[in-house]
């Protein structure tokens, strides 16, 4: 399936882009004119990390659907690994989000839609983890995990929408209506950082799937030797 690009190649590509992205973000993109000033640069890694987390959960969602259709455990491994990487990135989102909150609003935590949604997503995918650990039979574990991954991924945007019923959020709308477009230099720097982060995510998933497959091979060999 994923024999196309090796993990090291993805990793090197990610590294190059992230270094260039960091250089662009810190020296090329202008310093924010608003109150945030230089700390607005958090945006160049906070938002790409968030995008990478969502993308990883998206991969898990697609893998879950393919698994349910094919019953091929390869897709279960991909889903499992994607959730793990998604969780890793989500935790980084929370940390950078809190730093952003401190810099922008002066508080470490705000019950703000995006932050809250990510917090809940963390709990959802932690539950996925727990679910896997309490089912012994492999195929059943894969099936339940896939069903839950589908439901969880559907739930995340709904949660985000629901948080809008709460009083107004604090999150700056940087891209999209109302926030005005990005300046060319900002957009370029951001795009490089975003692609770099996504490549890094892909490299991590790629490598961890490899680990899972080798682990399967080891258990297979062990059982055949033991039996």
């Amino acid at each position, binding site marked *: 399936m994923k024999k196309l690009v090796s993990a090291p190649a993805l990793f090197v590509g990610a590294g190059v882009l992230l270094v260039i992205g960091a250089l662009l973000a810190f020296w090329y993109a202008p310093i924010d004119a608003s109150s945030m000033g230089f700390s607005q640069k958090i945006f160049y890694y906070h938002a790409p990390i968030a995008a990478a987390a969502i993308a990883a959960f998206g991969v898990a969602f697609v893998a879950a659907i393919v698994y*349910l259709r094919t019953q091929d455990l390869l897709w279960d491994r991909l889903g499992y690994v994607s959730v793990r990487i998604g969780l890793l990135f989500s935790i980084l989102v929370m940390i950078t989000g809190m730093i952003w909150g401190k810099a922008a609003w002066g508080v470490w935590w705000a019950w703000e839609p995006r932050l809250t949604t990510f917090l*809940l997503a963390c*709990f*959802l995918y932690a*539950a996925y983890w*727990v*679910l896997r650990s*309490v*089912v*012994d039979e492999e*195929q*059943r574990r894969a*099936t*339940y995990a*896939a*069903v*839950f991954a*589908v*439901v*969880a991924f*559907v*739930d995340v945007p*709904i*949660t985000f*929408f*629901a*948080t809008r*019923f*709460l009083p107004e959020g604090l999150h700056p709308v940087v891209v999209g209506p109302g926030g005005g477009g990005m300046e060319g230099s900002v957009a370029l720097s951001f795009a490089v950082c975003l692609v770099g982060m996504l490549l890094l995510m892909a490299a991590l998933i790629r490598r961890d799937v490899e680990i899972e497959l080798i682990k399967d091979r080891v258990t297979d060999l062990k059982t055949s030797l033991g039996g």
Partner: protein
Amino acid sequence: MGGWAQFKAIVRKDLIRELRTRDMLVSMILFVILAMIIFHYAFTVEEGSDLTWFTGGMLWVTFIFAMLLGLNRSFAQEKDERCLDGLLLCPVDRVTIFLAKTAGNLVFLLIIQAVAVPVFALFFIERSFLGDLLPFLVVLLLADLGICSLGTLLATISMNTRSRDLLLPILFLPLIVPVLIAATGATTLIFAEGTGFGSLAMRMLFLLGFDAVFLVAAWGTYDFAIGE
């Protein structure tokens, strides 16, 4: 062949069983009323504190936790006596099983609410909200449907795992948060201000959307959740 007849048969079987033993309903009702008493003491900071703005939250937190109790029971018997195999052997669409189980749980939740809401009103709500009964019932039904459909799907999964009733809340609670947000807000508005349909329309639509999405999601995945 009669999917509807099978649906009725499963619901009737669950109702007969529960009304005969009453083990689930009695504990759910006791739990709900006890929770209210505890909320009263937990939230009253001084004599005569106004708890109006907590009403929606108290009500839905209680219902969701009561439902968790009920959901664990609703599949325990199917599993313990291997009745689930008997059910799966029948020429019945798995989605029919899902819908029937959801409907059964919905009936139980509504029975609980029929007892709990008047007691709740007596305890916590000073103004009469009879005029706003209709919007309240709409919100109630929409939220219940979401709670029951999602809960039934997850209970089906958790009953087959090692830690059954421990797992269910961990799976269920984070997923149900959107319903809690919308239903709580709407209920509080009704109890506190007596708003009509107008200001609740968005929340009602949202609940309707949630129900639709999770009914479809369960539709697509229930085969896998209940089989093998």
